[in-house]
Every structure is written in structure tokens, then in C-alpha cells.
């Protein structure tokens, strides 16, 4: 028996949430750990797999898969599952991870538990999974013979295995049905300014909410993020009002972040926002309201107007 984990690559290595999923899958002790990657596995990605204790890396290098197509990726995951004789398949709880496993579930008529944070029992499979954007947990039983789950981002920290794995590359030749390419990325428009594609993995995030006051109220937020080498994250109200683009949104309907430090300025801290930032290692709130949930849940707080505090921080940092 083995466990197959879908590993996504990011900047040449295994993405953070993929490494978390590998750590989690290994901790289940449900069998030999296998990874499946779409595209050529880089040396750095294989190193990550070795460290995580992966025995075999199933690599699907078909050029037809160069542009993302969820159904075709699902065909690859199915093929890896067969090759590994796996009855447990895990994917990172990212947009792609959830989408691809949903395809596998639909194709094979299996159940899928999305955004799992904990496994209570392996057989029968009983999991705790995030619902309501992480504000509540659902205990659910998965009765399918082949068990599918995605791992909620940042539920565990990636850690190396006691014994590194061999991470032997096993080429996977998957015949791709043209039907599975009916919905395929035609092109990617690379983001121009304010690129925060790294929001989910930024070491520092400077956040701003309604307290910014308007679209012109972000100059110091941008400046502090730049000074700290971090990214800007905003609350839902900010994107709903059109002050900042949606890809900067942190929360249930935006990005989940897990930086070393999250500096939340003028954000009250709704459940939806908290769902996206709770995994930050240290949270610093800047808010005029000492009773705002963001303040009471933070590690450190400055009570005051962000437009007074941030310029002073920038001056102090020099």
C-alpha cells in the first residue's frame, strides 16, 4: 500500500503547501510515500521530495500537459495512483490541488474531503476538515475504497523525514484524451505592477483594511512592505470597494498567508479575514479600537491611527 501526494512546483522547488502535504501524508504512516508531478521534476524539487521521505516520484512529462488543464492533471494523478497501487491520494489545498482532486473524484465517483486538518482514523477514514473558511471544523467520514483528500494550507509545518527517501524518478506515460484538454489554459497574462503572487509564501505581510480610508491611503503600506521585503495583503472590504485588486485579498475568499510577521493595519479582524491570516507566526495589529478582534487576537498591538503610526515606523527604520 502507498500514499500518493500531488506535488506542485513553485520557483523550481516543491511549493510550501505541497511540502506540508508530504509531511502530513508521511505522518499518517499509511504506506510508502509517493509523489506525482506534472512536468519535469527539477533537482531542487527532487531534493525536497527526498527530504520529505518520498520513495518514488511519478513524473508526467508529456508536452501536451505544459499548459494547465485540470482534467488532464487528474488523468495523471489517476495513473500515478494505479502505478503506486495507492488507496490514499493527497493534494495540497490550493486552487489547483482542490480542482484536480475534484476531477479525480468526479471521474472515479469517489468522495473527496477538502481542506483536511487532521485524520482521526484511517480505516474507516474519519477526518477533521475546515468549513466556513476555517471558522469551524467538520468531522466527516469518507467511505470510498480509494480515499481522496486535500490538506488545508498551513495546518502542519513541513519537516524532514527521519530517513530521507530515495525519490526515484519513475516516468509516467499517460495517454491524454483530447476531451481532457477541452478546458486548458490558452495563455497566461503575467501580472505587471504590484505583483503579489508571492503573498501566500511572503515572509512578511503588511495588511490594510477599511482604516486605510481610500485607495490613496496605501502609500505607507506599500512603502513598509517594500522596506521589509514583504507583500501587501488587504481585507475583503478593501477589494469590494475597489481600492485594491482582489489578488491582494487575505481571507476566506482570498489568500491564506503564513508569514513570519503579519502587520495588520486598520483591519477589524472578521472571521473571514482571520481564516486567512491565523497561521501567521507573529501578528502585530495597528488599530484605533483596542477591542477590535484583530487587536485582541494579535501578539502585539499599537493602539492608534495607521496614518500616524506607519510614517513613524518608516522614519524609525530609516
Amino acid at each position: 500500500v502507498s500514499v500518493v501526494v500531488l506535488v506542485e512546483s513553485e520557483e523550481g522547488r516543491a511549493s510550501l503547501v505541497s511540502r506540508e502535504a508530504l509531511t502530513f501524508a508521511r505522518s499518517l504512516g499509511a504506506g510508502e510515500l509517493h509523489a506525482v508531478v506534472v512536468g519535469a521534476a527539477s533537482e531542487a524539487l527532487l531534493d525536497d521530495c527526498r527530504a520529505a521521505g518520498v520513495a518514488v516520484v511519478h513524473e508526467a512529462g508529456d508536452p501536451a500537459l505544459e499548459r494547465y488543464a485540470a482534467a488532464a492533471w487528474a488523468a495523471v494523478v489517476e495513473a500515478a495512483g494505479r502505478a503506486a497501487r495507492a488507496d490514499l491520494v493527497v493534494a495540497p489545498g490550493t486552487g489547483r490541488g482542490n480542482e484536480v482532486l475534484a476531477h479525480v473524484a468526479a471521474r472515479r465517483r469517489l468522495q473527496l474531503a477538502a481542506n483536511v486538518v487532521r485524520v482521526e482514523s484511517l480505516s474507516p477514514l474519519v477526518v477533521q476538515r475546515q468549513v466556513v473558511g476555517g471558522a469551524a471544523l467538520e468531522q466527516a467520514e469518507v467511505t470510498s475504497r480509494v480515499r481522496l483528500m486535500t490538506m488545508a494550507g498551513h495546518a502542519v509545518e513541513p519537516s524532514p523525514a527521519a530517513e530521507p527517501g530515495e525519490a526515484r524518478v519513475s516516468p509516467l506515460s499517460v495517454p491524454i484524451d483530447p476531451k481532457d484538454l477541452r478546458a486548458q489554459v490558452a495563455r497566461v497574462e503575467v501580472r505587471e505592477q504590484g505583483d503579489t503572487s508571492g503573498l501566500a509564501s511572503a515572509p512578511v505581510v503588511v495588511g490594510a483594511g477599511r482604516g486605510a480610508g481610500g485607495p490613496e491611503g496605501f502609500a505607507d503600506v506599500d512603502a513598509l512592505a517594500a522596506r521589509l521585503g514583504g507583500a501587501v495583503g488587504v481585507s475583503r472590504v478593501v477589494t469590494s470597494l475597489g481600492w485594491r485588486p482582489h489578488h491582494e485579498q487575505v481571507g476566506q475568499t482570498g489568500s491564506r498567508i503564513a508569514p513570519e510577521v503579519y502587520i495588520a493595519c486598520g483591519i477589524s479582524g472578521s472571521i473571514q479575514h482571520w481564516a486567512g491570516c491565523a497561521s501567521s507566526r507573529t501578528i502585530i495589529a495597528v488599530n484605533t479600537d483596542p477591542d477590535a478582534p484583530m487587536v485582541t487576537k494579535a501578539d502585539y498591538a499599537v493602539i492608534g491611527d495607521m496614518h500616524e503610526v506607519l510614517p513613524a515606523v518608516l522614519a524609525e527604520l530609516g
Partner: protein
Amino acid sequence: MTNVLVCVKRVPDVTGEVVLTGDGMRIDGRYAGYTTSPHEEAAVALAVQATEGSDGTVTVLSVGSPDSIEQIRAGIAVGATDGILVEADADTLGPADVAEAVAEVVRTREAAGSTYDLVLLGNDAADTGDFQVGVRLAYLLDRPVVAGIQQVELDGARAILRGEGPEGTEVYDVELPAVVTVLEGGVAPRYPNITGRMRAKKAAVDTVAWSGTAAGSGRQGLSVPEPPPTQVTVLGEGAAAVPALVDVLRELRVVPE
């Protein structure tokens, strides 16, 4: 003419606090009220925008209790044409059941001569967060499906779809009929005006009963994690607290030298 079907879910409004029912099996929305799942609100706005100025129609469908008609009428109030309520106890249905229920409506309407060229759903429901109803529906209907879309343009028998990927905005060009799941953020929210509200009151909403056998969700119970007791260190007020704040940042080693 393009006919769009938008599936919306009535969910408890949990902006403030999540309250569970006594048996711990459901979220209790009696006090905070109910709303439309945010991604689906965006899906309605996208459908209305994409069909504006054409003779296309937008039908809002919900699978749920009779109260879900409120969410259907909210969609009509911001520009949808009509609605369909599939009456069922949504809490007893799993994601595969909901996909079945929607597929049944699409097939029935198709047999009666009206095709939904595009079916829009939310990427994931705000309450159950299963991330799979749209994909399952697409397989039941044998249609292509794209998840996580924020912009929709109709171009004859094709749809141009945009969503955020790891490297930038991903563009899909998909032949209709298709299924698309939507993430909020790519379209401005729509608010009803008086005319919209009046039309919503009068618009036709068909009610059908779901006849399937529910496979269920496998739910054994819900819990709300205890919030940790506050451990906040207040560094002070206003600019006077800034030196202490900068000390904290330096201690955490996040200030590049």
C-alpha cells in the same frame, strides 16, 4: 442567444460568530440571518454582465429549503431573468447529490427544448467548502469545466474566461456548453434598485422537488475551535509606541539591514 444558469446557495451569515445548533450538526443562522454564498453572488453579477445588451437570459437556481427563494429573488433583483428552486433539505445532501440535482434540472430543461449554454456556480460554498459541486456537475453533463474564474466574456459559441493562476492571469477559451466555477473579486458587486426589486417580486420562480436518493456528506458533527485567550502585548498608543514596535520587528529579524 446565450442562456446562463447560475447556481446559488443560501448560507448562514457568519461575519460575526459561528453558532452551532444544539446537536452540533448544523450552523445556526437564526440570529445572524442568511445570505448568498459570496462566490455565487459574484457569479450572478458575472452572468448579468456577460449577457447585458444581448437577448441572452440568466436563470438563478438554488437547491435548498423554500427559504432559498430569497436568494433566487436577490439574483433576479440585480438583473437575472427568472429562477428555479429545487426543494430539498440542503443539510442532508453531499456535494455529489447537489451536482445530481442541478444536472437533473439541466437535462429536463434540455429535453423541453431550452439549453443552458453556460452553468456558473461558486468555486466553493461559504459554509460547507467542498470545492467540487461544479466539477461533478460538468462530468454528469459531459461538459468542459474551469474552476476559480473571475471574468467571463461570451463570444458566440465560446466563452473567454479569466482567473488568477500561480504565475499570472490564466485565460481559457472554452467551447459552449460549459460549466464554470467562480471566485469573487473580478466583478463589481451589484446592488438592486427599486425596479429590480419590483421585478424580483413578480418574476416567475419554478419550484421542483428533488427525487434523488441522497448519498449525504459523511458529516458526523461540527465544532468551533475555542479562540485562544488573548495574549496581546500592547506596545502603546500612536507614534509614541513606534520605537517599541520597531524593536519587536528587529527581534523577529524581519528588518533587512
